[in-house]
């Protein structure tokens, strides 16, 4: 279970998140929607541990442990995964080498043994088949020269391999055509499990047709202004975010 309590975050003089509260239970898919510049990506980066943000109050608890006190790699080993809005290109690091390094680094942190090469290959094959990732892509440098859709699929492949407890998908739908969107959504849906939860960040309702959320939260001006079921996404699609921004300002 992920619990964000009274989270206030600033960059320089500017306060981005203002006492944000959000709970996502095991097995739940929560959608986080909101207008541009409202702090959705900041929230995902702060949860994952990016430097440069000043957390002035609050905590982010994953199964009761405050992630904010841990290094990003420790958070990952504890089961947090962030699918990036813009996955980073890493020239010179073969994708396969990276995947193995990541998986084994997490296992080592958890005191587990390294995965044998055959077991690793089996896992890779299953995940890449599901996401339509060809084996020659795994030999290339990570994300270098990949299309937008390929980069997103690669992030979901990593999520499938690393089997996190909690996945944050930061605008995974941006830059995807309809076919790629479906593949990515299928990938996420395949990972839905009673002991795994997701926070799906998006502007649009479209992604939520494919990844159907259990709860929807509307964010405006740095905090959650309304929560509800999946029908809330449809309401936003019709009426836009203006009303919620007014609520936040009030």
């Amino acid at each position, binding site marked *: 279970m992920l619990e964000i309590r009274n989270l206030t975050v600033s960059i320089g003089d500017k306060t981005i998140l203002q006492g944000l509260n959000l709970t996502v239970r095991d097995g739940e898919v929560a959608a986080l929607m909101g207008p541009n510049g409202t702090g959705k990506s900041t929230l995902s980066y702060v949860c994952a541990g990016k430097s440069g943000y000043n957390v002035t109050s609050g905590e982010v608890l994953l199964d009761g442990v405050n992630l904010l006190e841990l290094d990003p*790699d420790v958070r990952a080993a504890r089961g947090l995964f962030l699918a990036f809005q813009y996955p980073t290109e890493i*020239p010179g690091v073969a994708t396969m080498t990276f995947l193995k390094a990541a998986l084994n680094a997490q296992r080592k942190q958890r005191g587990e043994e390294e995965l044998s090469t055959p077991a690793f290959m089996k896992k890779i094959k299953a995940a890449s088949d599901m996401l339509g990732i060809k084996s020659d892509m795994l030999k290339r*440098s990570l994300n270098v020269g990949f299309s937008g859709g390929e980069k997103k699929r690669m992030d979901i492949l990593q999520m499938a391999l690393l089997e996190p407890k909690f996945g944050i998908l930061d605008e995974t739908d941006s830059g995807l055509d309809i076919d790629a969107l479906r593949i990515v959504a299928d990938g996420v849906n395949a990972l839905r499990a009673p002991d795994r939860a997701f926070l799906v960040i998006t502007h649009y309702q479209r992604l939520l047709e494919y990844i159907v959320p259990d709860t929807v939260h509307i964010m405006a001006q740095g905090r959650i202004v309304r929560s509800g079921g999946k029908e809330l996404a449809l309401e936003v699609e019709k009426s836009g975010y203006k009303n919620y921004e007014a609520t936040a300002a009030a």
Partner: protein
Amino acid sequence: MTAQIIPSKTSAEVALAEAFGTARAKLPGNAEVAQLREASFESFSKAGLPHRRIESWHYTDLRALMREALPLAQPPGAEAIAALGKEMRAAGLPAQSLVLVDGVFIPELSAKLPEGVRVSSLAAALAEGRRDVVTALSAEWAGVKDPIVSLNAALMQDGVVIDIAPGTKLDAPIRLVYASVSATPVAHFSRSLVLVGTGASVQISETSFGSGGRKGQINNALVIVGGDECDIAHTLSLTDTEPGSLRLESFMVKLGAKAHFDSFALITGGGIVRRQIFLRFDGADTKANLRGVSLLRGREHADTTLFVEHCAPGCEGRENFRYILDDEAVGVFQGRIHVAPAAQKTDSKMLCKALLLTDKVAMNSKPELEIFADDVVCGHGATCGGLNEDQIFYLQTRGLTFAQAEALLLDAFGGELVDELPDESLVAAFRAEIAAWLAKRPQGARL
């Protein structure tokens, strides 16, 4: 009253003059070679050790860095060679190895090369006055005018001359293996030549044997003359320079038409290294690719300086060099590309990237383009900076520790150029050398 300024000689310059005076009668070569040596030494003597006011040596001031001149190496003794041979047999030298000990070619430790390849010592070639070898010694050859090359021509003791017959295709690399048996630090001057016939295809790999093999002051030159339509792949592993040593490497390459030339060098290790590459495109439609990775720490200093001369039309040059600098190391990259009026349709791109791991390192990067033809594509770029924080964060979010992420990125930065090499065994060997260098880095040292 007029004051006459007499430049004073440094003690190293005086010692070098004395060494030449004593050694000249014993140095190999016929009368013509002896004359060339005299002329070369005079040319060096006039210029003196290069210093910061000589532009191409601005960042590697030898007059300040070379405080003394070490005594000339004596030819290795029979006992020492026998002991080294035993060691080499036990370790197992790669096939097609030609062994040079303290700059002297040792046929009894060297492999017999296949048909189409003829090998002799430089000393023998100079004694008989081989025309092509002697021609390649003159300062005008390939337009090389450099005091350190002149000093090499004056004092060269030995080396190896390799003739590759036209049309010869070799699958495995010819390896020049450098070793040392000298008990004390000495100076040695060696020069090797590889003369590649028309349409021949060859790999040349320069490596070292044993640890501490290259102590002292080394002035080494390698000359490659590539005929039309030849294909040459060259690698140099310069990873054995001992702290306190001075290593001067001159690499002179002249290529005919429609040739293909590829060179990669890895530089690590102590002391001061100056590597200068003189590459001349003499024939049309030739492609050449120069690459290098320098990994430096402590107070190491490594300078790679290129002089690329485009003299013929339609040639393509690629120069790609990378540096990782740690502690208080100093890196130098200078790339001068000269495009002569006749060299229309030249396509040249040069890039130097440096990763600076502390705020006490220094990187001097200087491209120079001199273009006298009007229909060319020439570009250059240089970057200096730390590791990319976004990349580190991305890797951390996947579970890699900061130290693991940093090591992976450094390995990738150097390894990217290595991966382009045509031979898989060379890729593996160079990647292992980079990994070994990185493994000596304190883990988790924050940038």
